[in-house]
């Protein structure tokens, strides 16, 4: 029945129907439609995650909202609205606001949040200018400048490769709490419990369980309690 209803809603124009439902207070309905839209292969993931975050926040699910806001995009997709929404979700979750980032941290965040093509272009530019600069300034006093640029390019390439292929995938705790167990069995007692919105590293996957790592400890958590982040999510 719900599937039929959703099919009818989608036929009548998915995103506008969702927006109308949201505006009229039928937030759960809007959330379901946006989730359906997100499953499409050519979905506008950033906008849909953005809207799903709003729905979750209005439904009183700040952890889910936090998860979607993180997926809604890095600095490239950032807007005042998204930043404020993230701040609101963080406040609801009781997350301590991070201190203002230092300049190098801002640069790293901008780099991590950029699209791979942009990052590659930056790396290529740094390597090229650095290499040519070394050739031009060989034997002169400013050689350190292109050498630094070359090193930055190489470091960026290393970071990009690590992020894309070497780093463990990450996830966000969506439930009110995510108990961690020594083995993937619900009958076992939980060793430690993770708060909603906590960011975890995914070390292994089982059928319906994820082995996760967090500063509080590591263990197996129910897969449904963790929302998996896209690789490279800042």
């Amino acid at each position: 029945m719900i599937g039929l209803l959703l099919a009818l809603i989608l036929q009548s124009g998915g995103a506008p129907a969702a927006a109308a439902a949201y505006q009229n207070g039928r937030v759960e309905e809007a959330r379901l439609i946006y989730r359906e839209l997100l499953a499409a292969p050519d979905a506008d993931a950033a906008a849909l995650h953005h809207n799903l975050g709003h729905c979750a926040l209005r439904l009183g699910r700040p952890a889910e909202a936090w998860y979607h806001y993180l997926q809604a995009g890095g600095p490239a997709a950032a807007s005042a609205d998204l930043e404020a929404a993230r701040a609101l979700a963080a406040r609801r979750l009781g997350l301590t606001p991070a201190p203002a980032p230092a300049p190098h941290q801002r640069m790293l965040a901008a780099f991590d949040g950029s699209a791979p093509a942009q990052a590659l272009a930056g790396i290529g530019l740094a390597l090229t200018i650095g290499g040519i600069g070394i050739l031009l300034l060989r034997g002169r006093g400013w050689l350190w400048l292109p050498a630094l640029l070359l090193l930055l390019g190489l470091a960026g390439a290393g970071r990009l490769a690590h992020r894309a292929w070497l780093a463990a995938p990450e996830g966000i705790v969506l439930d009110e709490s995510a108990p961690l167990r020594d083995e993937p069995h619900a009958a076992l007692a939980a060793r430690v419990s993770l708060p909603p919105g906590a960011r975890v590293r995914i070390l292994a996957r089982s059928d319906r369980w994820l082995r996760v790592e967090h500063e509080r400890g590591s263990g197996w958590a129910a897969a449904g309690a963790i929302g998996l982040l896209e690789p490279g999510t800042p």
Partner: protein
Amino acid sequence: MFAALGLALGAAQDPLLVELRAPRREWYAQEAIPIEVRIGVAQDFLERDLLPPFHRRLDLPLLLEGSWLPAAQPDAGDGFSFALNGAEAWARAGGAESRAGRAWSFYSYSAVLRADQPGELALPAVALRYAVGTGFRDDPIHGRVAAGREDRMIASEPLRLTILPLPVAGRPASFRGAVGRFELEAAAAPLEVAPGETLTLRLSIRGDAPPASWEPPDLGLLPGFELRGQLDDRGSPVRILQYELLLRNADARAVPAIEFAYFDPAPPGGYRIARTEAIPLRVRGAPSQPAAPAAAAVADLRLQEPRASAPPPHRLTSAAFVLALLLPAALTGSFGLFQRRRARDARDPLRVRARRAAAHFQRALARHPERCAAPFAEYLAARLRLPAGAALAPSLESRLLAAGLPRDGAREAAETLADLLAAEYGGPPCADGAARARAQVRRLERHFRAGRPA
């Protein structure tokens, strides 16, 4: 009117009854259920035969027992006192009627109950205890006095009700458990604020549900404002909430209308939303502190319009990654070679001359193959590092030999130049002169570029 009741008549022939009544059989969870305990007694029996259960004089010498009945509220002055679970309570007059030739008086005691969970609710029977005098005699001082006393009891039938769950359909997102009927009033102070300053919003919610059973509106969603604090006076029937709101948006011109969703169980039963009026504000222009970014509350958040079709997300491929590393290396290498050649050219300008002469010869050959003697001579001179006219001298072959060319190559080049010159200046035509010259230049270029001494 009373759909549900449990009735019991008095023991033996005592003209007494007690019954439990409710206006209807089906109720919603958390809905206020008015239960009436109705007591009927024949007037003559009340006046003549009933004895008080306690020393204290009561209007109705009856003791009602029902552990689930809530304690009595103080009497407004027009009630009839009786005993409820050992304490004094008051019943209202419930009318009179005649039954079997006797005048009966009825009294009712009301209590309000709420069921937390849906399902069948069985209210246990209530008991009515009373004492009947026996062997009355007339006393000159006390009048009619009973010689004996007999305690008796009657009980009502239990009352069975059905508790329905609150419907899911049509439930507003802002519904927070309030069941009943509610009215909302709001007032704010001060009405003149600047962004970054706070105001107090006083919200009065009048309703018939106990305050503990519902949550107040969440003003964390109020557009343009940030909730800084909240005081809750959980009075009944009026619950007063005071919200401290920080004005975050200089564009705000009013405290928006506050909505409060509740379920009204009155048939047919449905969700309703009570609203206050928006409260206009005078917002001073200059903010006393920087206002926060646009959306400081959930209600401020704006949806994004998703594109109908978005390009697939960019993923880093190993090919792109390798290319991004190799391309700078290739560019840098090319630049290095270019720089090296430029340095070599700067050190040896005659190399440049030779290169240019070769290029000039190729262009001349393409345009006027019949007149390529001069460019060929210039090329040979440039390669031999001689003045332009020196190639025309008879010593050309020996100079080419001195430059390291093999003997037949040197001779052939000298002969080709001689044939070309002759053809241009009136001699016999040289049909294959251009082709021979091109082949000579190609061979000489290979020779000189191979680094052999010029």
